[in-house]
């Protein structure tokens, strides 16, 4: 079941002004290197033999793309536009930090064809924002959302985070209410996971903070799901909510459906025709490779049929679309697994598809194993 949807394009801008204490993304605070990096980003080629048809989504992520100097995103998009074809009506997203949002930048983005803005709000509580090491406060987050609307952007996404040390049901409810009051087309709610060598992981190891218990994480998750679906949002993926089918992130959907995508920039991942490859996470290595003409250093893997099925299985069970019954029946234990998970109210059969319930989302990491 290779997916022949149009491809997506991802541009990774690996810079942040400061680092948040929980973050293990690949990003760097040496913004002075941005000029060189952007130049390379605009020049990177897909590996030989990997052709892509017109992209119907473009996603500028990071890092913090909005921290780039004025005019640089427009320039990047212009150069990219000169090298790759974009389909008419493409979804073009940029991730922004509330602090960086100005009328000028918004105008620049619009001019560059960007039609969707995803704001990294995380919380509307100043104390929490400070603890998380974010640069902005609640006021500037609200201000950014309004400015985006005023600039005529029709597609606004808000990213929130929950379940960090000290988080409470009350404060989460209030953050969700504020987010709802801004009427975004899209909301992402990410549960805090403490991973990698981050300052937060060190605080945890040193006993300065406590890990949030399963029970509270569960309640926070269920609260978000209930609050957002009550307000008409569709809970279409574990961490993602959309106001109507059309508002779901088309770009992210490609990751979950094995659609082709090309990722440019250090640490960016690409996928096409059963092959996955990724640039290594090093700005210097990346720029050196692109400038030298041999291309950035990369890793790659070719999926076996079994691996492809495994990915399809677990990715499918993370989205509200679920999986076709016909696909599940490839796994020898499928009938028994399905029966059990239906009894546990984790899965539901809808027509010829099997879809996860909200409870199913809560146990998404357990579900695939039942079929294996």
């Amino acid at each position: 079941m290779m997916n022949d949807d149009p491809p997506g394009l991802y541009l990774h801008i690996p810079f942040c002004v400061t680092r948040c204490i929980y973050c293990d993304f690949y990003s760097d605070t040496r913004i002075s290197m941005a000029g060189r990096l952007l130049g390379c980003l605009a020049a990177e080629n897909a590996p030989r033999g990997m052709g892509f048809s017109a992209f119907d989504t473009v996603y500028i992520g990071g890092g913090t793309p909005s921290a780039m100097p004025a005019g640089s995103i427009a320039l990047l998009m212009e150069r990219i536009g000169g090298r790759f074809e974009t389909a008419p009506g493409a979804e073009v997203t940029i991730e922004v930090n509330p602090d960086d949002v100005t009328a000028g930048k918004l105008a620049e983005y619009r001019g560059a064809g960007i039609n969707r803005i995803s704001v990294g709000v995380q919380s509307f509580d100043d104390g929490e924002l400070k603890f998380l090491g974010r640069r902005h406060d609640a006021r500037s987050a609200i201000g950014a959302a309004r400015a985006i609307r005023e600039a005529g952007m029709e597609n606004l996404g808000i990213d929130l985070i929950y379940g960090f040390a000290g988080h409470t049901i009350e404060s989460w409810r209030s953050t969700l209410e504020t987010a709802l009051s801004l009427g975004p087309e899209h909301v992402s709610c990410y549960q805090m996971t403490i991973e990698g060598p981050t300052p937060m992981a060190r605080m945890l190891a040193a006993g300065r903070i406590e890990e949030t218990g399963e029970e509270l994480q569960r309640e926070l998750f269920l609260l978000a799901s209930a609050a957002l679906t009550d307000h008409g949002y569709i809970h279409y993926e574990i961490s993602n909510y959309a106001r109507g089918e059309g508002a779901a992130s088309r770009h992210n959907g490609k990751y979950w459906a094995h659609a082709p995508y090309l990722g440019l920039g250090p640490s960016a991942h690409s996928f096409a025709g059963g092959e996955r490859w990724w640039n290594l996470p090093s700005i210097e290595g990346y720029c050196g490779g692109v400038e030298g003409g041999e291309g950035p250093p990369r890793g790659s893997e070719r999926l076996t049929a079994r691996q492809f099925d495994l990915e399809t299985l677990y990715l499918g069970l993370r989205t509200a679309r679920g999986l076709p019954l016909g696909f599940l029946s490839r796994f020898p234990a499928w009938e028994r697994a399905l029966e059990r998970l239906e009894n546990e109210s984790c899965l539901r059969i809808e027509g010829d598809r099997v879809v996860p319930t909200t409870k199913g989302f809560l146990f998404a990491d357990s579900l695939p194993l039942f079929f294996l």
Partner: protein
Amino acid sequence: MAGIRNFSITAHIDHGKSTLADRLIQYTGLVADRDFQDQILDNMDIERERGITIKSQTVCLPYKSRSGEEFILNLIDTPGHVDFSYEVSRALASCEGVLLLVDASQGVEAQTLANLYLAMEHDLAVIPVINKIDLPSADIENTREMIEVDLGLDSDGAILCSAKDGIGIEDILEAITKRIPAPRGEKEKPFRALIFDARYDSFRGTIISCRIVDGTVREGDIIRLMSLGTTHKIEEVGVFRIAREKRPSLSAGEVGYIIAGIKTVSDTRIGDTIVHDADPMPPALPGFKEVKPVVFSSIYPIDSDENSALADALEKYKLNDAALIYQRDSSAALGHGFRCGFLGLLHLEVFQERLEREFNQGIIMTSPSVEYKFILANGDEVEVDNPEYYPDPGIIVKSLEPYIRATMMMPERYMGAVMQICLARRGVNSHFHYPTSGRIELFFEMPLAEVIFDFYDKLKTVTQGYGSFDYELLDYREGNLVKVDILVNGERVDALSTIIHTDRARTRAKQICDRLAEEIPKHMFKIAVQGAVGGKIIARSTISAMRKDVTAKCYGGDITRKRKLLEKQAKGKKRMKSIGKVMIPQNAFVSVLKTNDE
């Protein structure tokens, strides 16, 4: 028949038995120095690691004495564990003397004494050897005194030695020729030989190690194994010199091997007498007994698809271990497997380790059990070594369990602690005496079931290594026995059932439940782990429900990472057993086994 001497070396653990054996081999020039691999006699991996000899080894050393006389010295190595005490007794029965090795820095210890008694039982000449005199901490005078006082031996005859530095080796060899009598037995009498070991060789089949007691045996002879009544034609006889060395014949007094087209070691019996088939009614050599397994456990492949591989491995293993018995068995929880019988717990452990290491078989073993007897209402008597076949309690009139007579020897100061562990294990009728001052020999009658778990380890611990232990089966006695079942989420896990004395049932059940609760991962629902006797729940532990299991993000690099994790989990799942809706990891079964009695 001058010229032959048959002897064994006996020592407390670590007093240098293997080192001395190596030195003797080296001195007599059997192996060139440069080929010398340390501790040639302990050649099984597991034997080396555990420092326990499991199989007897023999080596035939040529020696020319100071007076110019030629000798053949047969060194017969003996197993070092109570599970194999019968084998030890047969090996000693093949000797005329022993070197009793004492570490000069440690002096006489428990095992030294036990070994001396064993040697005396077989009327062997005893040559005390004081080893490790090179050590700065060596106290030769004190050791001499202990030999006099504790062992009652003449310390003037003790030989000073450093096996490590090769000091005193020639003195030892001379003493063997002078102080150990030549073997009695007559060449002219009808042929009789004592089997003290048998090993499997993939080219030649079974190689019997034996002591020729009377007569002569040669290639082509038709022999009969008396206890089994089977006859075989001899293909080859010879002696052990590191490698086998073929000889035209073996005669009275000699120690060597016989190859006679015998397929597996199970077709022979240690302690049996070999005679010429033509010889109608020769008297059998004394002391033969059929060794019977006393500990039983079922084994199952971790991966249920591996059943036939396990069957193959068992068949191969059995070629070299006559003491193991097994038959097909199956469990609702664990699928098809085998019920196995062992000589003791060490035998079981060695078996398990060898299966995993040499045959690459991952297995789950059920809790070891002894053989119980039940008298039923209709007068029948049934023997049960597998809790699965525990009769309906309603028709049991009387339950019987095997008792042993345990013999323990230790320095007097440990007596209190040892009494305590014996009483805690339902020991009765104790008595003791002082074989020498300061040392105690303690006897207890105990249920075998109480010693198979960890009694020996426990004894070693409380006596700081100075306690020795031996046992013999006594009889069956009435005991209040019950079967404890374990239920996981309401489903009985047959492989975890045990037959146990009623006084122990609750504690043991609780231990099993707690262990399982620790090892079974959380599921989406709450799981009760219960211990039950009949329909009555006597212990309980709970595994709380998992409340969520999801990671929030899945973009770019997460996709491969998550898939790899899933691949790993799927593999792990293969090593789990599903009981109803619950997945039980292999570890859970193993952890239950480790539960000790305290």
